[in-house]
């Protein structure tokens, strides 16, 4: 492992050779919604610092990158809410100073203390959430069909569906369609999930990432995105209001992203200030309406900053119903995770 780390570390150093990490800079490993200048510029101006952002996809990639980096290379980590414990286990998250960030104004369902706290120590705080559900073109499909998972991937929509290319939410939806709770998925349930995935896959024209799924829906290549949601269609709302989303009666999957300070950060105090800013009503409103993707702010006070139009697009008033109807991502252990990924790849190769 040591040799591997050294080799990988050397590679990472070589890759980062062009980047001058300096004092007064904050280095954050983030999802693409944090790269919106509208979000970052106010923080940089207030603290007179430069925020260096690096996007990643998938917790595995982030953990690999952090393992390959030198201590102090990164200050802030944005991570899937259900994966905070994995980051803590890997030793890449530092405890948040007690009382540094208040969740008093949060939507109670997304405080997710059980996810952000390990052995009584809080390592992260939820910053944004939303749903992996069904996005569709209301001008091309019958909206009533989208209210039940059983009719979404029916023969009627053969070849008009794209599946979001992330195994956890889509397998979560498949589990929900079979009446299996996402937090109860076990190895024994994979056969049932496989059946649903196979049907879904046989109807699908593509399996697409965020940009490709947005493009496919916007250009009419497909009319439905399984695993889509407000994060997919909200940025297109003004130009193509017919692109919308719903949560079927069986429910859907809820995603949530958390933010924390990286263990050994060079600027831990600045990192905490960044987290305070992101979780403030102003920061939350900007994050919610990021140019990369929209999503609900965890802090309900952001509602005071968002405009009515923005809140309409986010469906602010329907959140209590949505929160009640949705379940968190599946959070498999390492062995089940590999089985789920293998099943996902087998499905893609069908």
């Amino acid at each position, binding site marked *: 492992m040591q040799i*591997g780390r050294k080799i*990988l570390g050397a590679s990472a150093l070589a890759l980062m050779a062009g980047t001058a990490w300096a004092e007064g800079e904050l280095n954050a490993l983030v999802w693409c919604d944090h790269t919106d200048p509208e979000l970052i510029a106010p923080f940089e101006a207030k603290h007179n610092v430069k925020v260096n952002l690096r996007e990643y996809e998938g917790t595995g*990639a982030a*953990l690999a990158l952090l393992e390959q980096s030198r201590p102090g290379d990164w200050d802030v980590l944005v991570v899937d809410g259900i994966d905070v414990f994995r980051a803590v286990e890997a030793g890449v998250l530092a405890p948040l100073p007690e009382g540094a960030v208040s969740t008093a104004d949060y939507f109670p369902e997304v405080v997710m203390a059980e996810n952000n706290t390990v052995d009584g120590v809080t390592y992260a705080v939820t910053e944004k959430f939303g749903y992996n559900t069904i996005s569709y073109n209301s001008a091309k499909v019958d909206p009533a069909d989208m209210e039940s998972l059983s009719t979404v991937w029916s023969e009627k929509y053969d070849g008009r569906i*794209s599946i979001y290319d992330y195994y956890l939410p889509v397998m979560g939806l498949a589990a929900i369609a079979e009446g299996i709770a996402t937090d109860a998925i076990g190895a024994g349930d994979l056969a049932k999930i496989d059946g649903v995935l196979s049907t879904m896959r046989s109807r*699908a024209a593509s399996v697409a990432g965020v940009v*490709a799924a947005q493009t496919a829906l916007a250009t009419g290549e497909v009319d439905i995105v399984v695993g889509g949601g407000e994060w997919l269609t909200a940025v297109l709302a003004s130009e193509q209001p017919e692109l919308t989303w719903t949560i079927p009666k069986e429910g859907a999957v809820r995603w949530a992203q958390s933010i924390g300070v990286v263990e050994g950060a060079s600027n831990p105090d600045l990192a905490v200030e960044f987290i305070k800013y992101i979780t403030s009503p102003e920061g939350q409103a900007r994050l919610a309406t990021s140019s990369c993707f929209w999503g609900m702010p965890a802090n309900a006070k952001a509602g005071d900053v968002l405009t009515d139009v923005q809140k309409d697009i986010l469906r602010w008033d329907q959140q209590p119903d949505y929160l009640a109807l949705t379940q968190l991502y599946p959070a498999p252990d*390492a062995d089940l995770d590999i089985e789920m990924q293998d099943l996902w790849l*087998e499905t893609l*190769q069908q």
Partner: protein
Amino acid sequence: MSKDQVRGWGFVTPALLWTIAFFIVPFVVMGAMSLASLEGRTLVWDLSLANYAKLLEKKYLWRAILVSLEITLTVTVISVVLAYPLAWIIAFRVSPRWQRLALLLAILPFWTSYVVRSYAWLLVLAREGVVNETLMWIGAIAEPITLANTRFATVTGFVHFFVMLLTLTIYANLIQLSPNYRRAAMDLGANAFQTFRHVILPLTLPGIVTGAFLTFVLCIGDYVTPQILGGNTELTVPQVIMVQLGRRADFPLASALAIVLMSIVALAYLLSARWLRLDRL
């Protein structure tokens, strides 16, 4: 060591160091990594062939190898069939005055970004794209057909690029042929087809094989085109490698897949070595 030898080593050493640092060492590391395994998130140096065994056990892995080979061979054959006549026309049917312009047109696709070109094809092949619109306008189809996000789209994107590459390599070969070969064949009573079959084709085979080999190598290792145009409806080896790295951080399995990919390229090289003339490029 003589002065000439010292000077010779002086010239060779930078290239040698470069090759050692950026090919030999990474290759050895990758080979060693492919013999390790991942237990949870811990890398275990158990020096086993378990990752190679997985290639046979897991259907999606060997299917990825099969898909990659199918796509690559299809692209190579189609590109050669299209490029040869094009190179022939540029070399022998276009006046020297217009040859430069023809060659310029041949390399135009190289001027645009690879990613942009792939996305452009996605729009062209979309259900509401120009191909479907045209087919519907001429009455060939009643409803749009699915062209994007298919193997057809992947092959089209590849062929667009590689026909131009092959045209250049074959053209370079054709233009070196003395017209006396054709004249001599004709003098000996060969018709046009016999001249091509028995004289021109064998003499231009090195150019064809060199271009085809380059097409094979670049195509089988490409990630962008199948990822954008294929719509993840089937996975190639580079796509599966990216999944192992990006989602699982499974460097050992990714390394094993990369070694297999290199072995396939090495095999292709051995099969074509007889005719391969990389110095003709």
